[in-house]
């Protein structure tokens, strides 16, 4: 499955290059400037907007999952498809909804990321950085993804500004995976992964 999705990724990337070309497009959202300067620290406007919008999206997804009947059905289906089917939940339809939601979230992320620089094909590799985020937070934990994201972000930034100048160029890219390795040694389900219910 993993290999197929990687292959499909390459295929789609090729298709995009064929249609729209591999050069970069300029792309920016016209959002009001909210650059913050607190003490010695400078917070740029674009990353702040990205943070706000991703928190908003996150909140919407949480509300959808935990406050609506659709969300309840999604959580039930995620646990066991056959049981969900037996109780009248159309599993295929639920899977479709889940794919739609994830596509929506990815679109928001893509817009925010292209807002930092330019819109181009190679940008899609950013998606791979979600792997340590999700694994550190715990595969099945939603809050874990948020915490994991912040941890990985800080880890990357710190490694970029403190360790890379020591001569280790590119360490920034590796640091999250090293962190992931350490976390998985201590907690195999990730930091907030659901503890399996075991019956004795």
């Amino acid at each position, binding site marked *: 499955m993993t290999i197929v999705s990687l292959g499909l990724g390459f295929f789609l990337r090729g298709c995009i290059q064929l249609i729209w070309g591999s050069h970069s497009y300029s792309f920016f959202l016209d959002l009001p400037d909210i650059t913050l300067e607190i003490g010695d620290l400078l917070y740029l406007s674009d990353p702040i907007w990205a943070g706000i919008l991703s928190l908003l999206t996150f909140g919407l997804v949480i509300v959808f999952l935990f406050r609506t009947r659709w969300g*309840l059905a999604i959580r*039930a289906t995620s646990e066991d498809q056959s*049981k969900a*089917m*037996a*109780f009248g*939940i159309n599993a295929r339809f639920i899977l479709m909804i889940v794919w739609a939601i994830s596509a929506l979230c990815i679109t928001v992320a893509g817009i925010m990321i292209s807002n930092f620089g330019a819109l181009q094909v190679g940008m899609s590799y950013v998606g791979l950085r979600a792997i340590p985020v999700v694994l550190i937070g715990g595969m099945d934990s939603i809050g874990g993804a948020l915490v994991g994201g912040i941890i990985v972000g800080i880890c990357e930034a710190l490694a970029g500004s403190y360790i890379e100048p020591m001569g280790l160029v590119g360490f920034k890219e590796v640091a999250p995976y090293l962190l992931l390795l350490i976390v998985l040694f201590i907690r195999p389900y990730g930091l907030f992964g659901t503890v399996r*219910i075991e019956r004795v």
Partner: protein
Amino acid sequence: MLAIENLRVVYHDVISVLNGISLDVNEGEILIIIGANGAGKTTLLRSVAGMIDFYDGDIIEGDIKMEGSSIKGLDAADIMKRYGLTYVMEDRPVFWYLTIEENLGAASFSRWDKHVKTDMEEVYEYFAVLRSLRNKRAGYASGGEQQMLAIGMALMTKPKILLLDEPSLGLAPLITEELFSIIKKLNESGITIVLVEQNANAALNIGIRGYVIETGRIVLDGKAVDLLKNEDVREFYLGSGEKERKSYKDAKRYKRRKRWL
């Protein structure tokens, strides 16, 4: 109400599990299906509930009819919505990581309306234990509570006919007794019940009619009281009957020697 006609089901295109089963379920009765492990009881229920595709099985012959119209090949959710047929899978099909209330909510997904809350109260009336556990995760409930929850969830779908797959699996005799008395009560409230059981004695005691399945065929059928008295059923499923050991010699059809040498 429900009629199964000469049903043949094959798994993975090679394993033949049901070899031509025909049976009818009359409205308002409790129908008992007993049989050894691997006889095809669960497969029968799966095919009726429209879930056989999920387990890579195929109905290669025969038909399943609900109130005269064929439901063969329909989706599980469709069958439930259109004909009010709910299948409670074996081994306590509850969602472990949802609370008991959420479980009941998830089960009423297909018919969400304003009456869900009052229906939930009704389920709590039937199963008083569930009310005190409503905010607990179902995975931490005991086996009996989980089975009651499973039947409660089935009630949330407003069934007209309920297929129960071994509700007594792994439960203590006392709990089983309580469960069966609730099943009887449900039947009296107007729900037709098809009960598949290993616990033949308890099941036949509440049932009206019964079928005995062996290797995908019906070998015996009749009134539940008659089956309880039947010599073979008593010996194979109830563990009573003739006490003295039988020898293969007695089963020999010909006592006379057929050739010299």
